[in-house]
């Protein structure tokens, strides 16, 4: 197979295309600077390499480059997103209908196998033989691994199977090594799309959509500031562009008011920096929508109220549910041996030195929650709640509603009816917040404190014990 490098040719074609903006040309250009090899695979007239594997992080332009090449060169292609293909039948259906029309796809049997697909493809391609290479583009190809194990090796050498000029292009975010099946398979051509570097490509790409009423230099400096804040958490080009568009008006505010000049970069930076920090906490995490964010920018006063609304509001739980959750936490993170000591009023005297076994001295928070049976939960619950609680149906139904809220999780599958086991899946902070609003009684705080003390290995250091306990009392 001869590899044609027709890079320049394709470049001119793209540049000639009027419907694609300068921006995309730039991006493709920059993509091709590093990735000109990809063109070697795209050679429409001759039999091309059977399969190509392209990988790189999100938003590095994999699908875009491939799809725009297909579009601009008007190549016959079938683009399939593997997320949609819950069964391989859907994949075959899409490919056939893209190449040969929906009538061909309708010929597929109800639950098509790979051989059905190959047979139909052969039949169809003999009717309408390929003048150009046909391309099958499989986006999010990592999902293919969950499908039928023979599908991926077969697709990699589909050209041989159907005896047609067809190339399969796999797009994925993970490396090829994770795909290779045990039995071995045809090795595709590998292309890597590396991440955009911060200094060069990201700034260049982002400053491409600068505002017409401001100079490109100003926008570039804005992008630099933006990247300074966001680059540590987010390298996704799409997300960064979205954030850049959102916050630019705020950046320009001092300019419009006449408080600063375009050269006053430092002043502008001081103005926008806290704002961007706030954006990172809210918009970036999608706690407020961009529309709300824009409204907030209009009116700073409203911003505070909205932010309060969207802040992690504490969970409203019925009174006994809170106690059940606290009891579950204690049961999950305290060794069962210590229950007698903490929850019984007249426990026997336990010698301090040998009280805890060696393995129990490691922090339970490092080990994670342990499962506990329902009986133990209820026993701790009764001793934690001050008043006498009847074992009513609603107390037990609260446990199951805690499970549906995923605050508790049920473990183990055997014997779900007679002795179910649970795990507490909330954090210490959450429990402390709950116990703060529930308990006026010091006893419960003491219990929590004791369990904390044991968990944080400070049994012997009296000073830190006292601080831990007094901290809890302060709460």
């Amino acid at each position, binding site marked *: 197979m001869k590899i044609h490098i027709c890079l320049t040719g394709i470049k001119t074609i793209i540049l000639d295309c009027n419907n694609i*903006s300068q*921006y*995309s040309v730039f*991006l493709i250009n920059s993509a091709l600077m590093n990735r000109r090899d990809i063109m070697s695979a795209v050679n429409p007239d001759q039999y091309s390499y059977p399969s190509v594997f392209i990988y790189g992080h*999100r*938003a590095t*332009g994999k699908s*875009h480059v491939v799809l725009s090449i297909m579009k601009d060169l008007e190549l016959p292609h079938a683009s399939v*997103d593997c*997320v*949609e293909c*819950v*069964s391989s039948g*859907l994949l075959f259906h899409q490919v056939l209908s893209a190449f040969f029309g929906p009538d061909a796809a309708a010929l597929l049997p109800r639950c098509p196998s790979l051989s059905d697909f190959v047979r139909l493809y052969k039949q169809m391609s003999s009717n309408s033989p390929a003048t150009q290479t046909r391309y099958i583009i499989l986006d999010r190809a990592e999902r293919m691994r969950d499908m039928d194990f023979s599908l991926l090796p077969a697709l990699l050498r589909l050209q041989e199977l159907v005896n047609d000029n067809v190339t399969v292009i796999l797009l994925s975010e993970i490396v090829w090594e994770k795909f290779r099946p045990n039995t071995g398979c045809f090795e595709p051509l590998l292309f890597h799309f590396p991440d955009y570097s911060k200094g060069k490509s990201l700034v260049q790409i982002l400053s491409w*959509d600068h505002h017409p009423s401001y100079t490109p230099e100003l926008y570039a400096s804005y992008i630099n500031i933006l990247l300074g804040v966001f680059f540590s958490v987010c390298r*996704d*080009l*799409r*997300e960064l*562009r*979205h954030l850049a*568009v959102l916050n630019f008006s705020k950046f320009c505010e001092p300019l419009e008011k006449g408080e600063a000049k375009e050269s006053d970069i430092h002043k502008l930076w001081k103005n926008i920096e806290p704002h961007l920090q706030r954006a990172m906490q809210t918009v970036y*995490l*999608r*706690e*407020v*929508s*961009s*529309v*709300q964010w824009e409204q907030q920018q209009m009116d700073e006063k409203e911003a505070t109220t909205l932010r309060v*609304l*969207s802040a*992690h*509001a*504490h*969970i*409203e*739980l*019925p*009174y*006994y*549910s809170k106690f059940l959750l606290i009891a579950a936490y204690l049961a999950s993170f305290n060794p069962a041996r210590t229950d007698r000591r903490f929850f019984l009023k007249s426990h026997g005297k336990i010698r301090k030195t040998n009280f805890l076994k060696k393995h129990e001295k490691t922090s339970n928070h490092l080990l994670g929650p342990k499962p506990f049976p329902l*009986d133990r939960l209820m026993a701790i619950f009764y001793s934690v709640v001050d008043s006498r609680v*009847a*074992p*009513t*149906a*609603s*107390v037990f*139904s*609260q446990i199951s*509603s805690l499970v*549906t*809220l*995923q*605050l508790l999780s049920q473990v183990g599958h055997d*014997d779900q*009816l*007679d*002795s179910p086991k649970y795990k507490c899946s909330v954090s210490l902070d959450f429990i402390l917040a709950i116990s703060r609003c529930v308990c006026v009684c010091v006893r419960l705080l003491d219990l929590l404190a004791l369990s904390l003390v044991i968990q944080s290995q400070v049994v012997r250091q009296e000073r830190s014990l006292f601080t831990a306990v007094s901290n809890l009392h302060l709460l």
Partner: protein
Amino acid sequence: MGNCSNEHRGTSFSASAASLSNPLICSSINTFFFLDKYIFSQKSCDGKNIGTYSTASLLALSIIDLCETFYCHLGVNVPDHAMTFRSLCNLLQDSVTPFVVSVHAKECAGVYFCISTLTIRIIGLLQKSTQVFPQRTESLTNSDFPQSLPVVVIFKDFEAFNSQVLQDFILICSRYTQELPFIFIFGIATSPSAIQHRLPHSVSSLLCIEVFHSLSCTQHLASVFDKLILNSQFPFKLSSRVIQVLVGIFLYHDFSVQNFVKGLQFSMLEHFKSQPLSMLCCQKQEALLSAKTLSKKNVERIRHLPSFMRYVETQEPQEQVRLLTNDEHVKEVCQKLLKNLHKYHKNYYPILQCLHSLTSSLPKFPLGKHIRELHVSCIEKNLWETEEYDSALQLLRILAKDELVAALRKCAEILKSTKILQNVLQQLEDFIGRLEALEEDSSGNGIISGKMEYQKTDLFQLQKTLLEKESRRTKRMNPFEVLRSQVIEFIDSLVREYLTPAELQPLNEVCYYSSSGVLRQRLNVTPRTSIQAALSHPFYYLQNESLKTDAGTISSAAPDLCIVYKLHLECGRLINLYDWLEAFLTVMSAAEDQDTNSEDARFIQAVSEMEFLGFIKSTKQKTDHVARLTWGGC
């Protein structure tokens, strides 16, 4: 007669029961009114929105922020969610788009099921062009689907969804969002941060999320209270104990307003069923009419009412005789008393609201934060005899003038809206006027008292002067303080006049349902306790004389299951089946004419019933042993 009127009550009861469910729907609709408005505004600018994005993202890299998503943050009161979502769904269907689909986590075990339920429902909504049965969303978009209208998908229980399914679903929808706008509504019961736990950033960045909080359930409860319980229009009343039971179930167990309303309905049913005199519990005119035509039996029942007996005792001896002998006279008195009761209710609620508005802003809420707490303490006992009331009045006595005026204004507003107690309103406005007239004087006073001579003093002298000042203050109050104490006394007199406990009103049993024990037994059930009671005291349920036994003994006449249960109580964690059988046979041998062959079989049957009830289970730890699962009596 009694029967007939009871039937009559039955019909009007069902009418009021229907109206019972209204406030919840109303309030939930109110909650979502904002949401609705928002969607409207979004709809109007939707096209624009997409336009700006497509120009902004020249490359069409992908669409950010196009799947609009709303998080409805609801409380944990799961039974209420269904109703809330139903009303939201109807609201959206009426006003925004016909394509509103709600899905449960149960229906979405996989992406395939999720999409197929969605499509099937949308096709059901379309009800046309079903020649080609679309299997996927894509083919649906290709069909003649009205383009401009968004599809609203409501995920009722977001927490219960498999996160992988949700992610895939969102990814797929985001691919088609340009042809078919999607709006997701997630119902979240915990906190909005659940989104970060469930969805990775790569998926959540495809969404444009707005958070809406529904009213907290206590606010819902307050509105239900306002509409149903603190309302003189509604003749049926609850006693303080019953309110405490219902509110207790709400606060301690489920946070469900719907269950609260159901409890209310149940107590209403109980009341009309158990109290024959409840025929008098209706609107004033009707009640008076039925009081005129009371049957002899019912007159006798009235005479036996504790509150009526108390009333009789306060009368003159001559009157007492007439009340006890003359039926016609009882009927007349009864009408008078009913009138009084209605008048009491009419006056009670406005004054209660006034008192609440006065005391709800006090520090530490001596009379309770919510009006329901005040109501409970008012109808339970004489409010003015409680310590809390005293401390509240103490706090009121040290209110500053502007605070006092504002509080009195609020009271005047409440009284104005009810249009009764006009004389009280007049007096209040008079007080307000006088307080405002004081303004100039008091400011003058302040300036004069501000001019003090300062000189060097030792500690003793300072103490002395301070004491003097204190005594002077107690002796001579400024006009504002005089007026303030007058106001407080006026309020106190109002409370003593109008907020008398309901239980002291004659004939209160007619309207007030008070058997809290029954209610607790019915609504807050303890299945395990009743099973254990049935097994250890079979007489309690079977009412068979031969089953009456002393505590601690096992009668052979009891059902096999009871005998086996009692024997197993004496065992430890593991029970030897053979020993158990022996003990069982010993008990059975006390009874004579028994067929020994069948006893083994009866034992085995009883043991398997025990296993079915969840008291024991088979174990592999030891052969011929079963493990015990329950401990202690309840």
